[in-house]
């Protein structure tokens, strides 16, 4: 009996032991593995490599950043990657809003779990399988998309920028639907009723009541879709034709020139940090 009560007593008398016991492991993970590797990446960006063997040379240099930021081709890649991430986020939002609204507000209690399960289903399939499925669908001549557009005498988007945006939107859509759905289900019915009582139509209620209240959820979803798109490179490789994203630059250079790849890799990190700062400034994270 005494042996089992002793540790509890110890923790009770010294609260810091409880805190260390509780937070020690996750904090060690966060600091050493997570922040540590990020910091290692950042430090590597200031080194260089032996021209021939590709081995690291530990001398401080800004050459990697200079090379990256003075080459118009790379600046173009940053702009392209950003615009892809923004397009994907907007498309996800446009598609997720009605779906989430229907799931949270219209569907009966019986159907709701089924709909949530359906939204989650694609997440059970392998990323690669889904992207290769889109490669087949986007095939310029025999693909499903080209076939659907044929009666309209339009040609399909084929492999390229549009293909990447469509595929990434498909991949990340659940990450937008779920937070928005969660936000909408927490919305008190009384507010909607009050809005209707005061004479607001559906569109006005959506604009002035629903969207401001679920704004934090929308932002949470956009952080997922934006940052996931920003870092992706496999989709670009499979359905991108000759279009490349920032991740592809990292992929082509990391083996031979790790410092340069590290310099490139800091760019999306900085963009995401700026995005989070902007989001925080707008107050959208306060309720999360």
């Amino acid at each position, binding site marked *: 009996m005494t042996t089992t009560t002793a540790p509890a007593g110890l923790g009770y008398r010294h609260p810091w032991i409880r805190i260390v016991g509780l937070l020690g492991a996750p904090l060690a993970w966060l*600091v050493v593995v997570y922040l540590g590797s990020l910091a290692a990446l950042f*430090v590597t960006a200031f080194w260089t490599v032996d021209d021939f063997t*590709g081995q690291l040379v530990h001398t401080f240099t800004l050459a990697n950043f200079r090379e990256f930021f003075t080459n118009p081709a790379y600046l173009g890649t940053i702009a392209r990657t950003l615009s892809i991430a923004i397009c994907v986020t907007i498309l996800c939002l446009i598609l997720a809003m009605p779906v989430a609204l229907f799931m949270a507000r219209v569907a009966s209690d019986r159907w709701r779990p089924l709909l949530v399960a359906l939204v989650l289903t694609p997440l059970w399939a392998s990323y690669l399988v889904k992207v290769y499925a889109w490669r087949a669908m986007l*095939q310029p001549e025999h693909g499903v998309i080209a076939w659907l557009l044929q009666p309209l005498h339009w040609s399909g988007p084929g492999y390229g920028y549009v293909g990447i945006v469509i595929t990434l939107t498909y991949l990340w859509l659940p990450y937008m639907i779920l937070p928005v759905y969660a936000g909408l289900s927490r919305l008190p019915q009384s507010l909607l009723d009050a809005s209707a009582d005061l004479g607001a139509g559906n569109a006005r209620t959506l604009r002035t009541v629903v969207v401001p209240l679920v704004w934090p959820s929308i932002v949470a979803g956009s952080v997922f879709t934006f940052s996931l798109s920003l870092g992706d490179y496999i989709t670009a490789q499979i359905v*991108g034709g*000759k279009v*490349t994203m920032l991740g592809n630059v990292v992929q*082509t*250079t990391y083996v*031979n020139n790790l410092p340069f790849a590290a310099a490139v890799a800091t760019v999306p990190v900085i963009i995401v940090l700026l995005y989070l700062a902007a989001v925080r400034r707008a107050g959208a994270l306060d309720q999360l």
Partner: protein
Amino acid sequence: MHTKRLLTTAVAVSAAALLIAACGGSSSSSESSAAPGGAAFAGPVGKGEGQLNVLAWPGYAENGSTDPAVDWVTPFETKTGCKVNVKTFGTSDEAVKLMQGGGWDVVSASGDATLRLIYGDNVQPVNTDLVPSYADIFPDLKMQKFNSVNGVAYGIPHGRGANLVMWNTDKVTTPQDSWAATWDPASPYKGSVTAYDSPIFIADAALWLMATKPELGIKDPYALDQKQFDAAMELLTQQKALIGEYWSDYTKAVDAFKSGTTSIGTSWQVIQNLASADGGKVMAAKAKEGATGWSDTWMVAKDSPNINCAYQWLDWIASPEVNAQVAEWFGEAPSNSKACAMTSDKTFCDTYHAGDTAYWKDVYYWNTPTANCLDGRTDVKCVPYSDWVTAWSALRA
């Protein structure tokens, strides 16, 4: 307040940890890379050490786990008592990186990796007298620029292939025998041309310039001075307008050629075989301008602790029976002249032109470009491989 202080501490701790890691790692970079050092194993090859760590291209060291019928590792283990651990790599760059990390005894290196390994002091010379199978290797594979330095052999040739011009016969109705349609700005196949997505493809542009712009004086597509290199990059930039997609994964190339997404472009024999086997209307030929290609070499790691097993492996993998099996499984020309009698498909060596010296005459095997020109010029500096990588990455960006 508390959380803020905690965060500051966390950042400080991680920065300190990093500093320690950075300082600890800095000692390894000061190795000399001037001369390919070390002496070859003097022999004789004795009893194995009991294990062998093999770094190989996929399909080069099969132990039956891919296909139970495809297994030349298990018989080796039974015969020599050397337990084989295999790791495969996807690109030459990856192979070099893994070898630099150490822990491997032998590696199957392509010509664009071998010199980096030799000058990086990652491999040792090979005493070919201790490898009986070496005697039957095709003479035009021995002592090449990518597998020997100053008359010293650094490995055993394994097999070779040429990069071919391939086309989908639905899209391209006339048989092709030239790279013209893949480089000409007025190519009728604009938008559906393909190219290999690797810095080494710059050599393909140089090869085309060798044939079409003799005034540039390119003698070896892997030895380009700045002017020649710039011309090649200009050609590649121009070609980008013709490209539908680039490929680096050969299964993607099979799919693109078969479906007709790609009409014409650079390819390998194994891609044609796979596409045709699936009913794809695909043909391939060696271009009259010549071709780039690959020739792989089995090399031994610098301080391999399992040297006896390593030499037994070199002999085993180059022996006629095994060499025939590997070549047929992977789809390339075997390096052992006696392997052709051992293939299950008797026309195999003809299909792959194994012993056809004339066929390989204008095939330029992948090589690692170095600042000291590989073609022997001493009046100019050549563009080293690291600049090839940077230029390729900028081209693709």
